[in-house]
């Protein structure tokens, strides 16, 4: 154990002396999370006026209009009623509205029939964000209608009188509002973009520890210093353990720094400090185990680089460090839970949106530690190979 501490101490000293290591671990993620939150803060304060032409006047159109006035969407959209498709086109051209939706006459009736009429969206090249949000509202609504059509059809098949189908459809349409236009996570509090990107980037850069540590260890092996360590009383596990222990300390320091700075400077919400720390340390532990595993697998620096890149980017992509989780497709959200970083991100999102403490993160932390244990066991078995020259 003492030998591992001695090895870790030497490694940390070397790392703190290596400016590029400090840059990679602390400065780069701070810069990236700052840039990302700046880029996305525009979305949060985004607001536009949407023209709506209700040529239908039926219950389905009314459902849409009502949905647009719900508080979540009202923050983004102000609805202005317009009379006709031509008037809407003119309004978009004159920039009186940023975009418009046209619900054609007979729309409500067509929804229950075999050939539903399409909703038209009028958008302007001058305001692509409004255009995108409008299209998104329209397509979400249509998707919703299609689901409703299915449920209505099911209800009819189950014996509901046919004359009630229009009422059913309208009722079903009111059940949900289109949500994709607004970034919103699972909890009750709204999620600021920076509160997602700060942990996402911190975790991503902590994952980089794998590459950095494994590569410099292989380099040491090639330079003969690992062999010299093996000639001392220190055993293989102590040498590998000491090396990754320094990685643990360094990654934990980096993550802590990012958490403190992003909360203090950018207003990121990491949630309850104790729970956030436990999640962070578990994640760092999982990364440490991965590092030890790569050290045992890679024989050359090139291999160390290749394996770690595959691991880092694979996990970051799967775990949702690049894609905002709640807007990701369902499959991806589920795949994220195969990764420790996916769990860690979910834990941070839960903490930021729902409040809560250790209880909130118990399951994610257990999942992350489980991952660390499995990977760590493999790494321990590979330790003698890691130090073999």
């Amino acid at each position, binding site marked *: 154990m*003492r*030998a591992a501490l*001695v*090895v870790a*101490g*030497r490694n940390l*000293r*070397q790392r703190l*002396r*290596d400016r590029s290591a400090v840059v990679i671990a602390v400065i780069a993620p701070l810069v990236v999370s700052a840039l990302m939150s700046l880029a996305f803060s525009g979305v949060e304060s985004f607001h536009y006026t949407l023209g709506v032409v209700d040529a239908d006047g039926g219950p389905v159109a009314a459902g849409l209009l009502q949905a647009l006035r719900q508080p979540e969407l009202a923050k983004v959209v102000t609805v202005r009623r317009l009379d006709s498709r031509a008037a809407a086109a003119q309004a978009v051209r004159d920039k009186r509205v940023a975009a418009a939706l046209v619900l054609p006459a007979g729309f409500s009736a067509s929804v229950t029939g075999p050939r539903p009429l399409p909703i038209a969206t009028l958008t302007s090249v001058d305001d692509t964000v409004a255009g995108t949000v409008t299209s998104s509202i329209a397509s979400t609504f249509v998707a919703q209608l299609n689901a409703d059509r299915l449920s209505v059809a099911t209800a009819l098949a189950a014996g509901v009188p046919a004359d009630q189908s229009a009422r059913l459809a309208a009722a079903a349409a009111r059940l949900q509002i289109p949500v994709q236009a607004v970034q919103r996570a699972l909890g009750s509090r709204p999620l600021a973009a920076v509160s997602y990107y700060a942990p996402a980037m911190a975790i991503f850069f902590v994952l980089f520890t794998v590459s950095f540590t494994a590569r410099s260890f292989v380099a040491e092996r090639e*330079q*003969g*210093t690992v*062999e*010299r*360590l*093996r*000639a*001392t*009383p*220190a*055993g293989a596990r102590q040498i590998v353990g000491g090396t990754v222990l320094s990685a643990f300390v360094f990654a934990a320091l980096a993550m802590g720094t990012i958490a403190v700075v992003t909360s203090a400077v950018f207003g990121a919400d990491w949630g309850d400090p104790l729970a956030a720390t436990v999640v962070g340390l578990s994640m760092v532990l999982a990364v440490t185990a991965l590092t030890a595993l790569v050290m045992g697998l890679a024989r050359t620096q090139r291999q160390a680089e290749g394996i770690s890149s595959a691991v880092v980017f694979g996990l970051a992509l799967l775990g949702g460090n690049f894609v905002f989780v709640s807007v990701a497709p369902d499959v991806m959200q589920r795949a994220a839970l195969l990764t420790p970083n996916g769990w860690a991100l979910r834990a941070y999102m839960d903490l930021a949106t729902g409040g809560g403490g250790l209880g909130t993160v118990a399951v994610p932390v257990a999942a992350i530690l489980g991952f660390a244990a499995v990977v760590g066991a493999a790494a321990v078995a590979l330790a003698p190979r890691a130090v073999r*020259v």
Partner: protein
Amino acid sequence: MGWMRRVTRAAAHRDESSARTHPAGADAAAAPGADAAAAPGAATPAAPTGTAVVVGGDALVGAPGPDGDRVPGDAGRPLLACTDLTKRYGDRVAVDGVSFSVGRGEVYGLLGPNGAGKTTTIKMVCGLLPPDAGTVSLDGREPARDAAARARVGYVPQDVALYPDLTAAENLAFLGRLYGLRGTTLRERVAEALALTDLQARGGDRVGTYSGGMRRRLNIAAGLLHRPALLVLDEPTVGVDPQSRHAILGRVRELGRNGMAVLYTTHYMEEAERVCDRVGIVDRGRIVAEGTRRELVSRLGEQDRIELTATGDLADLAEQCRALPGVERAAVTDRGVRLLTSDGRRVLPALLEAADRSGAAIDSVEVAEADLEAVFLHLTGTALRE
């Protein structure tokens, strides 16, 4: 030679005459117990205080002895015993049934050309490479499996293995800690090792800023720090200037005299002659002969070694020489042809004629008495590198 100055425990002084009477070579190996009486400095187990003093001038004083070695009663049993060590890399047999032993206070040399298997042997001794067959025993323990056995070995690898981004003192302190040193003892040993290698003025500099020779010296210091019972040096003088080399050799000689067992590899014949009590001549993975210099040379009888410095078709010249009566061996060297002859002076005229016939131009001829170089030529038919 500043760093030739010896550092020692103040208590371990002994005068030059007793150092000279200290038996060396085969005698020492045959009866390691006997030399304990003759080397009082070494007989005292090293004081753990490690109060080091630098002694200048010519007084020969004892160096720090290995911790707690040389217990009376272990006489006759070598510290290191290797039996039938064998290592293969694919089809190539790098080490082929090598057996040897090193006693306490003995400097044992493995002398052989590039690729003979010296480093491979040493790595097996230090527990860094698992042998395919054979055993290594350090006082009955196996360094590969036993941390306590490794703690008694000081390994100086052939290629410098240090951390360039740490200072010399940091490098030494780190390795010292791994050998269990700490606190005042650690600081003293680091200072002592730096002083021994004349690096004290540069101890605070990063090793990356060191010259090649300085790195080599530090590489050796790192192996001595914990005062091992067995010091293993793998070609420590390669790339070192003659002065430092002289100093290193003197230092190794002295450590041996003070009771440390030393395993030393080299392909320099004159190094082996100077520092080693006994030499094992290694060729193609085998020890082809072993003994003190005198024993080895006496195998040759009254033979002379002749060095022809020549240019031209050296292979043909060697071939011509081999055919001459009185020439036992002839091998091409990097400067000419080396011969082993029963009577050098009588062969000379015929040699010059042979050179004429082969069209080679002879620059100089040197006749020398038999030495390890001649032994090597005798045993292998090839020349050891210059």
